[in-house]
């Protein structure tokens, strides 16, 4: 026993030694944000591989500052977690980060306390140029990000099949549902939508304005599954799953890709990048291997009783600046360049968040023989219809939603019933994250 105690006292000594080395609780990094080490300080920029082109464009346009930009490829899902670790060590934060506004939301709470308020650092007319796309970047009057691109959903349809079957493209959700009955009767096996993941869920429920996870304030959220706008969306989905025109798969499921490859995909509602990156029209594209003018693009659908269409998003990222940056001038200048300068955005891979560049960007898609009609006016028009639900809460609404969505798909129960289960759990998830939940 004595041996054990000896060992234990040795270890205890080591612990005390280590604890002595642990930095004492430093004041929450406010001080670091204020430090201005000057114009010569390099900045670290976190990007993904696709955004390397943005950094390269900046360096090309500003050769004198090229050496000051140090880009790092990161998996941005880990961004909030890494901020917490940097907070613990009180150093190491990146200066500029490419991330979705929902991630920016996660790093904006008191525990993360990461983004710099850009409101007074960016000219008013530039802010206005972003239009509706900037909505999810605003947090209680503070501008925490600049939008890189928007991923507004539009209606994609196979123009050749539609013509062959003699159908007209729907403009309302009601017509969409009626057409699904027609298709189910005349051409069973043809698919008009996907319902397998959280973004498919958003397509129909945000598109209907369903107040689930509706952000009312930084600590208040509305979750009301009994709202008629939720019920009509759920019933639409259940109806189309019932008649077999809605696949219980996500759009990247190999089985769904097969449907598109077999030319059984009549239409699908998804993001503006789907045209180039999923339908494609090139040999290595996911859906269509050839470009023969088969892909039609139509405006987001509208509920008959609603004044205007409303559309969901599927992605669309932004650039956020750290409040800890030692060179805020350069960091903000860089963020402005990659979001608003023609150099990058007019040739970028996705629909620009900054609308004045968008018209120049249009040519990047207009040359593709895949499209049956010019997609650009439809995309541009759709930006104004992006649902306010695009501003997402900090908690992970997707994990809970998808759990019950898939359970209903698997068990053959309705999405209408699943809605109650989703809401019940989301309420607890939201409260655990410090939100007050409004259910009316």
């Amino acid at each position, binding site marked *: 026993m*004595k041996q054990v105690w000896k060992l*234990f006292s040795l270890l205890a000594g080591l612990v005390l030694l280590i604890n002595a080395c642990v930095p004492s609780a430093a*004041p*929450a990094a406010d001080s670091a944000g204020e430090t201005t080490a000057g114009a010569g300080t390099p900045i670290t920029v976190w990007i993904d591989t696709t955004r390397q082109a943005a950094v390269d464009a900046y360096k090309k346009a500003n050769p004198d500052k090229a050496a000051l930009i140090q880009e790092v490829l990161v998996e941005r899902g880990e961004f*909030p977690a890494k901020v917490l670790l940097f907070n613990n060590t009180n150093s190491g934060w990146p200066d500029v980060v490419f991330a979705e506004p929902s991630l920016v939301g996660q790093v904006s709470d008191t525990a*993360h306390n990461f983004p710099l308020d850009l409101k007074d650092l960016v000219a008013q007319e530039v802010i206005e140029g972003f239009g509706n796309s900037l909505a999810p970047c605003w947090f209680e009057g503070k501008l925490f990000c600049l939008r890189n691109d928007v991923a507004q959903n539009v209606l994609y349809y196979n123009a050749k099949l539609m013509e062959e079957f003699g159908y007209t493209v729907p403009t309302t959700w009601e017509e969409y549902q009626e057409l699904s009955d027609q298709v189910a009767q005349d051409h069973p096996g043809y698919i008009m939508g996907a319902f397998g993941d959280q973004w498919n869920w958003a397509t129909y429920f945000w598109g209907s304005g369903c107040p689930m996870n509706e952000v009312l304030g930084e600590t208040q959220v509305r979750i009301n599954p009994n709202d008629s706008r939720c019920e009509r969306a759920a019933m639409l989905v259940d109806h189309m799953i019932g008649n077999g025109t809605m696949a219980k798969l996500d759009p990247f499921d190999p*089985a769904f890709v097969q449907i598109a490859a077999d030319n059984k995909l009549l239409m699908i509602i998804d993001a503006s990048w789907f045209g180039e990156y999923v339908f494609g029209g090139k040999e290595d594209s996911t859906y269509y291997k050839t470009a023969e003018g088969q892909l039609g693009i139509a405006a987001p659908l509208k509920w008959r009783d609603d004044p205007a269409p409303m559309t969901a998003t599927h992605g669309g990222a932004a650039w956020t600046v750290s409040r800890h940056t030692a060179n805020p001038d350069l960091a903000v200048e860089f963020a402005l360049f990659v979001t608003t300068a023609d150099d990058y955005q007019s040739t970028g891979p996705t629909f620009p968040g900054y609308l004045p560049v968008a018209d120049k960007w249009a040519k990047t898609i207009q040359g593709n023989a895949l499209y049956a009609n010019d997609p650009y006016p439809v995309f541009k028009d759709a930006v104004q219809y992006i649902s306010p639900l695009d501003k997402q809460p900090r908690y992970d609404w997707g*994990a809970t939603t998808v759990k019950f969505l*898939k359970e209903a798909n698997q068990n053959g129960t309705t999405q209408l019933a699943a809605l109650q289960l989703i809401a019940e759990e989301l309420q607890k998830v939201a409260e*655990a994250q410090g939100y007050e939940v409004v259910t009316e």
Partner: protein
Amino acid sequence: MAVQTSEIEAPPRTQTHLGVSAKGWRRFIPYLFLLPYLLAMFFFSIGPGLYALLISFADFSQGVPRYFAAGISNYITAYGDFRFVEVFRNVGLFLLISVPVGIGLVLLLSLLLHIRRGRTAAVLRTIYFIPGAVTGPALVLLAIFMFDPTTSPFRGLLSALGYQSINDVIVPSTLPWLFTIVGFFAGSGVWIAIFYGAYESLSVEVMEAATIDGCNAWQQAWHIKIPLIRPYIMYMLILVLAGNVQLFAEPQLLGVAGGNVPNPWAPNQLGYYFAFRLGNFGAAAAVSLIMLLIGVVAAYAVVQWTSIFKPESS
């Protein structure tokens, strides 16, 4: 603690030129050999454990730790969370399945190998070992291909069971079984090798006597080999139990290609969620400490009940 060190009994000394008795050196040498292990154990298990204990009382609401500012509020947050019971129920079910199945199959395979010794057994032992060489996350990704009826080499079996797509296979009700399968392939090779080694070390005389007495292979296994290697089985029980409570990579990754894996599913994921989603490292530490407690209690209980670590009387 200082009191304890001062109590070391002083042996009669024969002075050497260094001023330390030769006997003192001799007592010291075993610790020197143990030192690498003790250091590793301290820095990678006891140290982090104590650190977890420290930060479980720290407040993280402002982003930086404020030590001892949280009192027991992290424990209340963690143990009162609505997912707490669910994740432990999930992992409990997984333990109920994976521990007996794992130990049973390892015993069976190692016994079969030992009955048919020779080149075949050596080759098979190596084969059993191979999946263990693949690290956890990579093995999970491999498992996804195995579970997907469209890509699996067992697609015939899967479709015969009525599974059309990965969404049919990876559902909450099958998860404990799927994790058991992944865990078995990851860990069994090592244990098969250990058990095999244990059979090899058994007294040849005893085996011969048994054979002369007319014992068949099955009786020999059941009545002689298994009782004699019981300490090894208990050892496996402790380690598998403690290891499986800490399940993380499997539930975290199994759902990446489809299927329905609720997150958090396991206690470790709940801890991860507290730490990296909510920024509450204190509550995460509280969750991890309960897993440590389960491992320690299980080990203590098994050691007490079975007296496996008692020194053998010669």
